[in-house]
């Protein structure tokens, strides 16, 4: 059980009414209990009802964009587990990004604290600064965002309620959105229910799990976790053998270390039913394509992860039956109740 203490109870800085934000305790899903460490909530940004509500409003409000047309939700759709069904999202000027929109859930359990496909943001709050000013996304400036929100009829009071100050600044914008994002918890897939003894897997799904856990076949678990790690990701970075010539440097583009060229963060396998297309650049439209890649399509490059096996022959060469079973298992990780949760809708 995580208890979040809120110490701030200060007076308003503009002589308005004093507000005491209401602390929120993030409910730990049963399937996480005993398996995962408690979620990481920054001491300087505890969850509060007012902060979460403000963050949600900002997430769904196009006011953050330069043309007042694009909100966070336009590229992180709830029905797609807060990803984008398009390969590349379209920004305010009609420009395309160059990586697929990452799904958003269970972020508070990202113990590695590296965000974006390339890990360039070291906190969730820092991550939120980028899309607002990225010309291929919201294309705005933070001074303009602050000024717009400050002159809005509702926002100054909402900031007052959430942070004790009606003065809008970018730090509190990022904090509010981060609070909302940390509430996006997905832990009610069929496999979660299986782990809790509520349902059984079909024989096909059960064999798919075996393929997933078999070092000689899927060997998915070394990067995507075990039933004991229900995040289904390691949240760390790998070159998974997609390109002979690396053009997107990934983590190496941020770190400058050639040994990290072409490394991208492992995404969670939760909610795969809703998060196509797949990989950092959205090159695969179907799970079959993803499985075929690991089975037959691996190619060598200098920084390839040693976990990629049998590179010279393209991979493990799963049977068609094992491929189908693996897909069936992977789909048990999808959580309908998450994408339909009214708390996460506008």
């Amino acid at each position, binding site marked *: 059980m995580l208890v979040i203490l809120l110490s701030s109870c200060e007076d308003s800085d503009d002589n308005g009414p004093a507000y005491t934000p209401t602390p929120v305790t993030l409910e730990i899903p049963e399937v996480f209990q005993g*398996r995962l460490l408690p979620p990481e909530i920054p001491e300087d940004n505890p969850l509060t009802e007012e902060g979460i509500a403000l963050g949600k409003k900002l997430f769904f409000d196009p006011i953050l964009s330069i043309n007042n047309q694009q909100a966070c939700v336009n590229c992180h759709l709830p029905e797609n587990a807060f990803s984008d069904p398009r390969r590349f999202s379209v920004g305010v000027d009609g420009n395309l990004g160059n990586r697929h929109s990452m799904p958003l859930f269970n972020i508070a359990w990202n113990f590695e604290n590296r965000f974006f496909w390339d890990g360039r943001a070291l906190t969730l709050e820092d991550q939120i600064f980028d899309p607002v000013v990225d010309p291929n996304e919201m294309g705005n400036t933070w001074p303009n965002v602050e000024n717009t929100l400050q002159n809005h009829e509702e926002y100054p009071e909402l900031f007052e309620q959430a942070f004790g100050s009606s003065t809008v600044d970018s730090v509190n914008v990022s904090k509010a959105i981060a609070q909302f994002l940390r509430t996006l918890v997905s832990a009610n897939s069929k496999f979660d229910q299986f782990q809790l003894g509520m349902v059984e897997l079909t024989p096909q799904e059960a064999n798919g799990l075996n393929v997933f856990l078999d070092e000689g076949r899927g060997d998915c678990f*070394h990067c995507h976790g075990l039933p*004991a790690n229900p995040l289904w990701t390691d949240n760390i970075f790998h070159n998974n053998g997609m390109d002979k010539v690396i053009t997107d440097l990934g983590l190496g583009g941020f770190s400058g270390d050639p040994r990290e060229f072409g490394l991208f963060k*492992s995404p969670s396998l939760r909610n795969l039913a809703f998060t196509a297309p797949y990989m950092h650049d959205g090159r695969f439209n179907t799970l079959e394509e993803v499985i075929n890649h690991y089975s037959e399509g691996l190619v060598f490059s200098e920084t390839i992860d040693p*976990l990629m096996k049998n590179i010279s022959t393209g991979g493990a060469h799963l049977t068609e039956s094992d491929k189908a079973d693996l897909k069936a298992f992977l789909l048990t990780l999808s959580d309908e109740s998450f994408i339909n949760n009214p708390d996460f809708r506008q």
Partner: protein
Amino acid sequence: MLMIATTLFVSCNNDDDSSTPSNVTVDFVFSHFFDGAEIANADFETTSYTNANGESLTLSKLVYLVSDITFTATDGTVYAGEDYNLVNARTGNNINFTPNVELPKGDYTVSFTFGFDDEDNDAAGGYEDLNTADGGWGVPDPLGGGYHYMRMEGTYINNIGATENFQYHTIRANRHSTLPPGPGTLEELTDTSFTVNLGTVSVGSTTSVEVQMDVAGWFQNPNTWDLNTWYTVLMPNYEAQLDMNENGAVGVFSLGTVITED
């Protein structure tokens, strides 16, 4: 019985009850070598080494678990930390570790367990930090569950001159009636963790003990390791795990520099 004391960071947690009264702690630092040449972060993926079988290899990952660091006094009194530490040689995470044990100054025989013995490996509920450490330190249930002891990964030049990946993963040896492993195939588990005896250390008011791992030993003695034969899918390979155990127990770990201040 095990008691898990969870901290915010991976790997420096209690796994057993221990409340021995004492007055000093001992710091450990883990360092890594290949045939005597120290391995630094810059060497990963760049420096080629030659193993006893003559194969050229590079390392990309070297992460391993040590547990139950134990101090045995000359009168036989045992002071046991009974905790664990996951060392990442590449990143340097947890190369410094102070076991949760306090003891009187004096001379001690120092030992630790490489990996988890069965008691710790099968702890009820497992270890929350290890479940997500380094991508998940756990071992799949069809292989007997528990946790990895070590993940050493890299590339080598195979016998046709091609670069191939290897995964030298040490876990509890598991024998199966048929492979691939699956429900009902597991026939036998053998605890392949082992005790490393570092020798005698004088413990003062502050003490720093260097533990050295010579990676070459994993490929050398008593079993000359042929990567062309055993380079991948070693976790369910019972004989490979036994050989890893034998090689690890001989000439891999040694006592390095000890700095003691009274």
